[in-house]
């Protein structure tokens, strides 16, 4: 396979082997030898380059340097791989690897990073953003300050406010540029009628962009403490000044009325001595605190350990019950004397073929305590709280998962049973083993060889079976007095979801820490599984 050697050959006595193209190609000029395939490649790579360049410009415009660096590296790699005559495997690997890199490897690493921060509501961004946000959010209209007749202008998409000062000069500013005198503008009394580079917005346009206009704040001057000009209705404006002042040298905020000093704390907020805080804060690293909170914060660790135990119980019981029923049915129908086995089989796999999320939702309706089919019809009007009692909800989840999962095990076990050579079983019988003994000592061990890896992957799948839990019970019934919105049937992955998105205060940091914990558990289980198989040796 020397012709397929694609890495630069080591400097040795042998000359470097060329790429596997036929030799005549190297004689004729490339320019003449343009194949349709090359044109397609050229067009595709050009398209990728164009999109990438656009991306670089767009990212640079908002100063997302991380994205810029990634895009530059990715573009260089793509062009190098596709126009180099070597790098053959690269040509086939690059597209998939790029997606894998961004949407799987990066997000995994990012989960790890976030788990060591306090990222979440109130700590969403950088310190600079937080300082700016505090200045904006604590702004108050200056008591008795004059009102200005303002004119709303637009430069492209950007909104601007303009006023006519006492001397008749037109002053215009945007959210990024403070008010400045603008030459070449016309005013009619205190209204601006035209300005170079700006468009004067009419009433209809003002009404249309009402939301943006009330949000707009135009700094009065470069000094932030002088406040900003804002308008509620698009025609009259007021000067708002912040009620706290930021001292850049000392890195503190001072309340202008009470004189309270807020200093930055280790948890990413400006905090006064009495413990009061200015919101929002910013994102800081908190070390292992998210991890220790799960185990030692008593309000959190109670629910956490309950959920951890239930996650294992759910995953193990799901595998055991589905495999048990599936194997039982496979044995039942593995008798050639049973007529209509195809018929049974095609009906028995229906729950497996029915989309899982729909099945969970249908069962949710059927198990509804007051109106559901199970209570009303099957149990004749009983009032069993299938989904609202902690233990019954767990039972319901296991039963529904059994309904969903046993056909897969049935199919797999049927296949595995048929693959067991009959002479082995036969010889065991000859040696006098009874039916049960044959099953326990021959069939089951032989079956396990092919089925065990599937049981492990089924365990891993159920360990993270978010869809079933979330759709059937939503994790409920909820724990009382838990700081996060989790319940008796939540498993770890749905706890992550609850912490990150459903609790009153979103805590991405804590949620990521729980994710990392799941990574570790799943990784450990898979590692143990792989050690037993020979997959690694077959590469």
């Amino acid at each position, binding site marked *: 396979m020397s012709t397929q050697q694609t890495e630069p050959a080591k400097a040795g006595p042998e000359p470097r082997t060329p790429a596997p193209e036929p030799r005549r190609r190297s004689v004729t000029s490339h320019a003449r030898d343009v194949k349709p395939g090359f044109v397609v490649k050229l067009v595709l790579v050009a398209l990728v380059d164009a999109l990438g360049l656009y991306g670089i410009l767009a990212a640079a415009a908002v100063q997302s340097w991380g994205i810029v660096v990634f895009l530059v590296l990715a573009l260089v790699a793509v062009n190098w791989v596709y126009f180099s005559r070597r790098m053959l495997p690269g040509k086939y690997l690059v597209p998939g690897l790029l997606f894998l890199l961004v949407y799987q490897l990066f997000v995994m690493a990012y989960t790890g990073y976030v788990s060591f921060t306090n990222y979440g509501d109130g700590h969403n961004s950088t310190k600079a953003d937080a300082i700016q946000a505090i200045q904006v959010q604590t702004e108050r209209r200056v008591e008795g300050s004059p009102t200005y007749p303002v004119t709303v202008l637009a430069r492209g998409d950007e909104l601007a406010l303009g006023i006519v000062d006492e001397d008749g000069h037109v002053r215009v500013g945007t959210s990024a540029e403070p008010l400045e005198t603008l030459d070449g503008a016309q005013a009619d009394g205190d209204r601006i009628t035209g300005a170079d580079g700006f468009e004067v917005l009419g009433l209809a346009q003002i009404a249309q962009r009402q939301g943006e206009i009330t949000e707009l704040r135009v700094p009065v001057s470069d000094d932030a403490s002088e406040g900003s000009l804002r308008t509620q209705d698009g025609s009259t404006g007021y000067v708002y000044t912040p009620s706290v002042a930021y001292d850049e040298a000392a890195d503190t905020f001072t309340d202008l009325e009470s004189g309270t000093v807020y200093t930055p704390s280790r948890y990413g907020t400006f905090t006064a001595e009495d413990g009061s805080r200015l919101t929002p804060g910013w994102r800081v690293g908190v070390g292992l605190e998210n991890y220790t909170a799960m185990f030692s914060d008593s309000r959190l660790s109670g629910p956490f350990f309950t959920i951890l135990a239930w996650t294992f119980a759910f995953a193990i019981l799901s595998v055991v019950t589905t495999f048990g029923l599936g194997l039982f049915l496979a044995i039942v129908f593995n008798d050639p004397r049973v007529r209509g086995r195809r018929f049974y089989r095609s009906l028995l796999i229906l729950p497996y073929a029915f989309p*899982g999320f729909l099945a969970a939702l249908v069962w949710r309706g059927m198990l509804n305590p007051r109106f559901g089919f199970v209570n009303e019809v099957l149990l004749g009007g009983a009032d069993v709280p299938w989904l609202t009692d902690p233990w019954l909800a767990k039972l319901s989840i296991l039963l529904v998962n059994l309904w969903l999962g046993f056909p897969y095990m049935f199919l797999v076990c049927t296949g595995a049973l048929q693959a067991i050579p009959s002479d082995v079983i036969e010889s065991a019988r000859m040696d006098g083993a009874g039916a049960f003994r044959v099953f326990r000592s021959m069939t089951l061990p032989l079956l396990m060889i092919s089925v065990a890896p599937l049981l492990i992957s089924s365990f*891993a799948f159920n360990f993270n079976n978010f869809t079933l839990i979330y759709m059937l019970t939503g994790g409920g019934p909820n724990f009382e007095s838990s700081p996060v919105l989790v319940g008796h049937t939540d498993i770890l992955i749905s706890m992550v979801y609850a912490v990150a998105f459903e609790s009153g205060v979103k805590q991405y940091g804590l949620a990521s820490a729980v994710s990392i914990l799941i990574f570790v558990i799943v990784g450990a289980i898979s590692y143990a599984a792989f050690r037993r198989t020979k997959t690694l040796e077959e590469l």
Partner: protein
Amino acid sequence: MARASLELHAPVTGVRWWREVGWRHVVGVVMVVVCVTPLLYVVSASLNAGGTLTGSNKLFSQVSGANYAELARTDFPLWAVNSLVVCTATALGTVLMGAAAAYAFSRFRFQGRRASLTALLLVQMFPQMLAFVAIFLLLLTLGDVFPALGLNSRLALIAVYLGGALGVNAFLMYGFFNTIPRELDEAAKIDGASHAQIFFTIILRLVSPILAVVGLLSFVSAFGEFILAKIVLSRVENYTLAVGLYVWASDERNAPWGLFAAAAVLAAIPVLLLFQFLQRYIVSGLTAGSVKG
């Protein structure tokens, strides 16, 4: 088993038949009832114009197409199109990228090949959805730069799904590619075919069964994928079926149950049909480890 087939010639009857064969039919009938009842219930609820949970309890008390007609006036057609677009794009992308990667691993010997295969195997252990918080935060940031790849974009969801494509399927395909004799490639190479020609015109045709299986599996898994779709898509008109139908069915007070049932029947039919096709591959172990969600 040999003994069983011998006994076929002497049919057992009476008590012995019941003890050895008949009870198996009893088990079968019970299980069929258990399997089919919920499905019959959905079909019946979808035909019940009343459309409430209570009203749906008498199976087939009413047969009307009102719910199905009503569906056309809801967001259901939009969601169906979204699901179709997202799942088709995901399936196509997965098949192409997975096949290309499997071809590279199977046919080229290069430095780092073993290491990358091992790395892929490791990545494969960790389902992408475990990192959904980070995916959400990534899209939040990306959306500032490219709205098309940010939150609430179907394109972004497809990109996210494609990110998980290689990890899940490359191995399945790699194994199958290895079963295609290399002599075929070599013959083509001697005839002057380039590596791209060998891949697109020879290999892809020979491995078409695995392409079909991987395409269908990734279509079905994207169809049933819920958590990523839920966090990425927040506007009603962008929902996929999984997100949209969840919103319908989880509305405790005024759940449009009849509409949900009709939508569920329509959404399940294509998947049920696909599974008739996939069934034999599952039995043959080709899809080993692909537990459906």
